[in-house]
């Protein structure tokens, strides 16, 4: 009897030791994992705070609308850069969105063969191509052949970044539409393209729009491909065949200058750019969050939006 009693005690002690060790390890891992999240969010917070704090000092009506002053003077503004960014986003969407959407339709509606499989694969790989290489491609295809920098080259380069993203999201959202919808269309004797455009796409609209806008927010911040295609300029847009300015390019050039005033203008441009891009990004996500109608953030943004009204 006594031996079992002692043994029991012994086992209990061993068990306690074992469990407490394991619980300590578990606690430690929990803390480390939580710290990882905090460490990742600190840079985001710091970037936003610095951009808005430093940028706000630079913002004025002249800064947003005028052409840049002479280098280092701290005068003038970033009007051409804002205009250029809007133009380049519009033009590249004009090229990239139709191709991306049609490609997504192909992958979703005709996509059960070998060709589609390889297209899907290369689409994914193409999405990860370094953007600067796509810029060089646009340079070789358009700038070198025309003999001058061209807005079209920039738009082409950005459309190459855009269309795989659009194709991917279009495919994903078209696939979410139940097959029965398509069958209903076929039973009514509709043509395939009518079914696709009138039934399937209208059911998958919100997913597609999300994809398109997210791709817009992605290309809006691209700098590398613009260096060798639209080069940058300090004049407002005048023709497709001369260099044009864009916000990311302007930020880069300003950051290279050794003047405090240039740095200030850089922060101001960064603030405008980040408002445009995070605006699109958050707007899209808000749209989704409000559709589902849940989540703290969705409600939070919803409140913000209703206050603006």
């Amino acid at each position, binding site marked *: 009897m006594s031996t079992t009693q002692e043994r029991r005690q012994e086992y209990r002690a061993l068990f306690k030791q074992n469990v407490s060790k394991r619980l300590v*390890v*578990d606690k430690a*891992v*929990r803390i*480390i994992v939580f710290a*990882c*999240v905090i460490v*990742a*969010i600190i*840079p*985001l917070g710091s*970037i936003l705070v610095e951009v808005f704090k430093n940028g706000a000092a630079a913002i004025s009506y002249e800064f947003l609308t005028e052409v840049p002053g002479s280098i280092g003077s701290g005068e003038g503004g970033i009007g051409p850069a804002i205009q250029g960014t809007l133009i380049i986003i519009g033009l590249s969407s004009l090229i990239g969105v139709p*191709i*991306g959407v049609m*490609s997504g339709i*192909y992958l979703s509606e*005709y996509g059960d063969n070998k*060709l589609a499989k*390889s*297209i899907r*694969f*290369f*689409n994914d*790989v193409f999405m*990860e*191509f*370094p*953007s*600067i*290489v*796509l810029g*060089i*491609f646009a*340079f*070789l*295809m358009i700038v*070198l052949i025309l003999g001058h920098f061209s807005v079209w080259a920039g738009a082409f380069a950005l459309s190459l970044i855009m269309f795989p993203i659009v*194709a991917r999201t279009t495919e994903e959202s078209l696939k979410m539409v139940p097959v029965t919808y398509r069958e209903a269309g076929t039973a009514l004797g509709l*043509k*395939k*393209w009518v079914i696709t455009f009138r039934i399937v796409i209208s059911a998958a609209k919100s997913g597609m729009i999300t994809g398109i806008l997210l791709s817009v*927010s992605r290309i809006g911040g691209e*700098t*590398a491909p613009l*260096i*060798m295609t639209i*080069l940058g300029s300090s004049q407002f847009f005048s023709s497709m065949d001369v260099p044009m300015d864009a916000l*990311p390019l302007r*930020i*880069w050039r300003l*950051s290279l200058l050794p003047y405090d005033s240039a740095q200030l203008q850089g*922060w101001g441009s*960064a603030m405008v750019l*980040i408002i445009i*891009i*995070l605006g699109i*990004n958050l707007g899209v996500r808000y749209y989704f969050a409000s559709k589902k109608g849940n*989540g*703290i*953030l969705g409600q939070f943004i919803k409140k913000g939006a209703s206050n603006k009204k």
Partner: protein
Amino acid sequence: MGKVKLPPPKTGSRLISDKIFKIGATAAGVYVLVMIVFLAFQLVSESYPIWEENGLSFITKTEWNAVEGREDFGVLPYIFGTLVTSALAMAIGVPLSIGIAMFISDAPAKIGGPLGFLVELLAAVPSVIYGLWGLFVFRVYFVDWIEKPLHNAFGDNIWLFSGTPFGLDILTASVILAIMIIPTVSAVSREVMRAVPQQQKEAAYMLGATKWEMFKLAVFPYSKTGLIGASILGLGRAVGETMAVTMLIGNATGISAIPSSLFKPSQTMSSIIANEFVEASPASLHLPALIGVALVLLLIAIAINVVAHILVTRMLKVKEGAINN
């Protein structure tokens, strides 16, 4: 039972318009293949002069001289620069990302959702703004708090920490790169961890495992391939990243760009292109050399991404199988 005779299918406008639709969609799908072929062809043919001049020694040479008459180009230092910065970024970023994925995949939706969203917002910040922030904010703190102490403690004994900590160097660029790959790696890792069947986790809990032991027993062994794939996907991002690195790496050229210490300026393949492309004259060897650099960069990026995609899709396919069973 009499068979119902169906009218013959209508030919004419219906078939033609559907055919046109199908052809249009197929053409848009094939567009990506055409672009890849064009891209490869253009890069090879336009960089041909440099391969003709140097042969494969273009890859192994360390000189970089664009002065007319003494032109000499080799891409080796920039390959080193790219690989070293990306590897460092992985070493810092991947453990962090996996930690984040663990936290978010396990936290209740009310906490995990918004936190995951914040981490994903990191991906929405443009590269050039990372560069600006790194240059004017991060660098200042980083030099004072990390680089100088490291240099003072180990600088004399370990070559890794020699050199003058100035902030425009390999380490700063790598840390910024690490921040930039976190959203990619953590998002994919999270998906991969979600793909682990619930029964596996419950089985581990039932054996008395703590949360950490559950991850060790059930999640990691199951999702290993996918996690490796996610990390390699992050590596692909890091290799192709241009602007933030260009602004922070210090832009050395030639032999001095070969990394000899964490606190020395260097150069990556993408940053040398960003820095010199506009000044390069198409008539000289300078432009073909830069296009040659782009070709090498593209090949490395493709190799990395193909491997990553195969690993990730294999993992997610396993998930589908598990659900069906």
